[in-house]
C-alpha cells in the first residue's frame, strides 16, 4: 500500500492532465467567442479535432528529415513529463523528486528547442521566422521564469515543487512583495510561452503575425495532433503551476484518503475553469502587440522577478 497509493496518484495525475488539456483549450475558446458575441465551438471540439488530425495522412515536405518526424513525439513527451510533475490535486506525486522546478523549466526549454529546430527543418521562410522569434521571446522569458523560481525557492527553502506548494499553503507566508512580483512575472511568462494574445495569436493564420503557428506550419496529420496536444498540455501545466503556487488550497496531502483526493480533484477542476475563463477574458480585452514590443513586455517580467529575488536576498539579513 505504501508504494501503490503514490504510484496511483502519479498515474491518475498523468492521465488527468492529458485528458483535461484539450478541454481547457476548448473552454478558453468558448469564453472568447461568447465575449465577442459568437456562440463558439462546443467544449469537445478540440478532442474531435485531435482525433480527426490523428486519422489523416501525414503530408511531409520533400526534404523533411527524420528529425522532423521524431520531434512531435519528443515535444509531446517532454511537455507531458513536465506536466506530470506539477502537483495538480495531490502533493504526494511519486516521482516529484526526480525533477525540481528548475528541471521542469528546462524540460519545457527542451521542448521549445526541438520545436524551433523543426521549424528550420523544411527550409521555408515561415518556419524560420517562427523559430527565430520564438527563441528571441524565450531568451527573455526563460531567465524571468528562472529568477521567479529562485525567489520561490528562497522563500520556501526548496526547489521541489511539492515542498513549495506545501509552504505556500501554510500560514507562514502572508503577503510578500517578492511573491506578488513573482506572480505577475509568471503570468507574463505564461502568456508568452503559451503563445497567447498580447504576444502571439493562437487563432491567426496570417503569416507575418504568427510565431508559434508559423513554426509548426509544415506539420500535418498525426504530427500536428501531437503538437496541438502538447500545446494544450503546456497551457494546463502553466495554469496548474500558477494554481499550485499561488492558490495552493485544497491540494490533497500524502496521507489523505480517497474522498479527500476526490474533493481535491473537484477543486482543481474549479481552479482550471476559473483560470480558463480569466484567460479568455484577458485575451479579448487586450490587443496583440507588435513583435518588437514583446521584449518590453517580457522585460517587465524579467525586471519584476529580478527585483523579487533581490528583495529576498537583501531582506535575509534585516
Amino acid at each position, binding site marked *: 500500500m505504501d508504494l501503490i497509493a503514490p504510484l496511483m496518484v502519479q498515474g491518475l495525475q498523468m492521465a488527468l492532465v492529458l485528458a483535461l488539456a484539450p478541454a481547457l483549450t476548448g473552454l478558453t475558446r468558448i469564453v472568447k467567442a461568447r465575449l465577442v458575441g459568437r456562440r463558439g465551438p462546443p467544449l469537445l471540439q478540440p478532442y474531435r479535432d485531435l482525433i480527426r488530425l*490523428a*486519422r489523416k*495522412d*501525414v*503530408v*511531409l*515536405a*520533400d*526534404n523533411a*528529415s527524420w*528529425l522532423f518526424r521524431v520531434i512531435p*513525439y519528443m515535444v*509531446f*513527451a517532454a511537455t507531458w*513529463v513536465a506536466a*506530470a510533475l506539477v502537483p495538480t490535486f495531490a502533493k504526494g506525486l511519486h*516521482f516529484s*523528486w*526526480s*525533477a525540481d522546478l528548475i*528541471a521542469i523549466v*528546462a524540460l519545457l*526549454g*527542451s521542448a521549445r*528547442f526541438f520545436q524551433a*529546430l523543426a521549424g*528550420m*527543418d*523544411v*527550409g*521555408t521562410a*515561415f*518556419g*524560420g521566422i517562427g523559430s527565430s522569434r520564438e*527563441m*528571441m521571446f*524565450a*531568451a*527573455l*522569458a*526563460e531567465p524571468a521564469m*528562472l*529568477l521567479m523560481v*529562485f525567489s520561490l*525557492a*528562497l522563500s520556501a527553502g526548496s*526547489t*521541489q515543487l511539492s*515542498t513549495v506548494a506545501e509552504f505556500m499553503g501554510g500560514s507562514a507566508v502572508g503577503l510578500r512583495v517578492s511573491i506578488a512580483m513573482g506572480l505577475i512575472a509568471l503570468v507574463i511568462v505564461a502568456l508568452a510561452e503559451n503563445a497567447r494574445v498580447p504576444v502571439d495569436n493562437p487563432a491567426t493564420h496570417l*503569416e507575418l503575425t504568427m510565431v508559434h503557428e508559423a513554426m509548426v506550419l509544415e506539420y500535418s*496529420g*498525426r504530427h500536428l495532433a501531437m503538437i496541438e496536444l502538447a500545446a494544450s498540455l503546456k497551457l494546463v501545466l502553466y495554469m496548474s503551476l500558477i494554481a499550485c503556487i499561488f492558490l495552493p488550497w485544497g491540494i490533497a496531502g500524502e496521507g489523505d484518503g480517497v474522498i479527500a483526493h476526490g474533493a481535491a480533484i473537484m477543486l482543481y477542476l474549479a481552479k482550471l475553469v476559473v483560470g480558463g475563463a480569466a484567460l479568455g477574458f484577458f485575451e479579448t480585452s487586450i490587443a496583440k502587440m507588435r513583435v*518588437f514590443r514583446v*521584449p518590453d513586455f517580457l522585460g517587465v517580467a*524579467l525586471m519584476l522577478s*529580478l527585483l523579487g529575488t*533581490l528583495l*529576498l*536576498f*537583501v531582506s535575509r539579513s534585516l
Partner: protein
Amino acid sequence: MSPVVLLLMASAAQIAVAVAAAFGARLRGAGVAVYGASLAISAFVFVVSLVHLVTAAAPAGVTLPLGLPWIGAHFRLDALSALFAALVGLGASAANLYALGYGRHEATPERVLPFVPAFLGAMTLVILADDAFAFLVSWEFMSLASWALVIAHHHDEANRRAGFVYVAMAGFGTLALLFAFGLLAGVNGDYAFSAMREAARGPTVSAFVLALALLGAGSKAGLAPLHVWLPLAHPAAPSHVSALMSGVMTKVAVYGFIRIVFDLSGAPYWWTALPLILGGAATAVIGILWATMERDMKRALAWSTIENIGVIFAALGLALAFRANGMLPAAALALTAALFHAVNHTVFKSLLFFGAGAVLTATGERDLEKLGGLIHRMPRTAFAVLVASAAISALPPLNGFASEWLLFQAILQSPDLPQWALKIFVPAAGGMLALAAALAAAAFVRLYGVGFLGRPRSEAAAKATEVDRFMQAAMLGLALLCLLFGIFPGYVIDALAPVVRDLAGTTMPGQSWREWFTIVPVSEGRSSYNGLLVFVFVLMSGSMAAWVVHRAASRVVRRSIAWGCGFDEPAPAAQYSASSFAQPLRRVFGTLLLAATEKVDMPQPGDMRPAGHAVTLTDHAWTAIYGRIAGAIDAIAGRLNRLQFLTIRQYLSFVFMLLILLLLALVLWT
C-alpha cells in the same frame, strides 16, 4: 612506479613523437603514425590520471635535475592535477582519434604534425609542474606550440593576424603570471609551490596576485575583456586543434587559475569573489551574444567557449565567496559545479569542433550561409552534433544541464552570505547566467538549424558526403559521454570529490550510492534531480505516444512539396538564413551590447542596381581597450622615431647620462 613519473614519461614521449614528426612529416603514413602514437600516449595519460583521481591516492611528487641549477624542476600529481590531466588525456585521445581521419585532408602536414604532440605534452607538463619555473616554461611552451598551429595555414591573411594577436596576448599573459608568482614567492624568492603555500601575505599582495592571475590565466581562458584573441585564434587552427584549444587548453588555463587562487594564495578574502562572479557572468552573456551573431561556424563555437568559461569562472567566484565566509558545504557545491562544467565543456565543445571540421571536410565551407541540409547527407555527424548542441544548451537529461543545475543550486545558497555587495551582485549574476543559458539555446538552434537542417544553400553543401569512420567514432563516442554524464551525474560528482575536498575543505554529500542515481546537492527536502529517470520517462512516453498513434490512428506518410504560398520551387536563398535568424536578438540586445548598426541601401524605383543591407557589429573591448593601447603605442613610436637619426655624439651623451642616472639611483637607494 609513481604515477607522476609515468605521466612525465608520457609527456617526454609526446615530445619525442613531435621531434620525430618534425623530421618525418613528409613521409607516407606519417600522419597515421604520429596521431596513432599520440593517441596511445593520451589514452595512457587519461587512464593513469583517472585511476589516481578515483582512488583518491596520496599526492606524489618528484624532483628532476632539470632547469635552474641547484633548484631542479619539481613535479607533483595531486587530485586537482589528476583531474585536469585526465581531462587533457580525454580531450587529446578524442582529438587524435578524430585526426586519424581528419589529418588526411591536411595539405601541409609538416606544419601541423610536429606541433600537435608537442602541444599535448606541454599541457600535461603545465598541469604537473610544482614550481613556478617549470610551470612558466611549460606554459610558454604550450602557448608557442599552439601558436604554431594557429598559423599553420599562414597563406590566409586572417590567420596571420590571428597568430599575431594570439602571440601578443599569450606573451602578456605569461608576463602577468610571472609577476603573480614573483609576488607569491615573496622576498625569499622560493619558487617551489610548497613554499608558496606556507607563506603568509596581506590583503594588498593577495589583491595583486588575484589581479595578475586573472590577467594571466584569464587571458588564456578567454575571460572578457581579455577574450579578443580567442575567436580569431581558435578557429584559425585545423579543426582537431581548435577542439584541443577550446576544449582542453582553456581548461589548462582554468587549472592555472585554480592552482594560484585556491591553492597557493592561502585563505581567500571575500572580495576576491566579486570580480570573478561579475566578470564571469558578463563574459557569459557577451560571449553567447556574439555566438548568436557569428556567421562563421567555427568562430561561433569559439564565442560559445567564452560563454562557458564565463560560467566556470562565475561558479569559481561563488566557491571563493562561500569559502571565505566559512560556508564550506556551499563552497563544495559551487566548486563541484565549476569543475563539472569544465569536464562537460571539454566533452561537448570538442565534439562541436569535430562536427565543424567534418562539415569543413565535406563541403569546404565554414560560412553558415552556404550550408544547409547536411542532416540528409551526413546523418551520423548531424546526430552527434545535435546531441552536443542540446547538451551545451543545458537541456535535460544531458550533461550540460546537470552542471548548470548544480550551479543554480549553489546560487540558491548565497542569501546567507553576510556581505552586502555579494547579496546584491550574486542574484544579478544568477539572472545573467540564466540569460546566457537561454541565449545559448538560441545560438545553437541557429547553428544547427541553418547548418544542418533546411535546404542546401550552396553546391558544395548539396554534394556533401559523410566523413570517414575515425571521425565518426570520435564524434559519436563523445556524444555518448554527453548522455552518460547527464544521466549518471552522481558518479562524476563523486569522482570530483577528492579535488573538492582539497580545495574547499569538505565535499558534497556522496551521490553514487543513492537509489536510482538521484543527485541531492544539499538535503533531500531541498532539491534533487534524477537525469536517468527524466530520460527514461521522456523516452517511454514519447515511444508510447508514437506507438498508440501508429496503432490506433494513421501510419500513412505522403511526400509533397513544402508550402510556398503558390511558388512551388522557391530558391534556397528564400530560407531563413543565419543573419535573419539573429535579427530579432540583434535588435533586442545587440544595439547596446554589440553596438550593432544596420545600413540599408534601397535604390529608387527605376534604378536597376541591387539593393544592399549591411550590418556592422563592434566588440567594445577592441574600441575601448585594445584600440587605445595600439594607438598609444603607435603615437609613442612615432615620437621616438626621431631618435633613429641622431649623430654619434648625441648617442654617446645619452649613454653617459644614463650611466649618471643609474649611479644616482644606486646612491639614493642605499
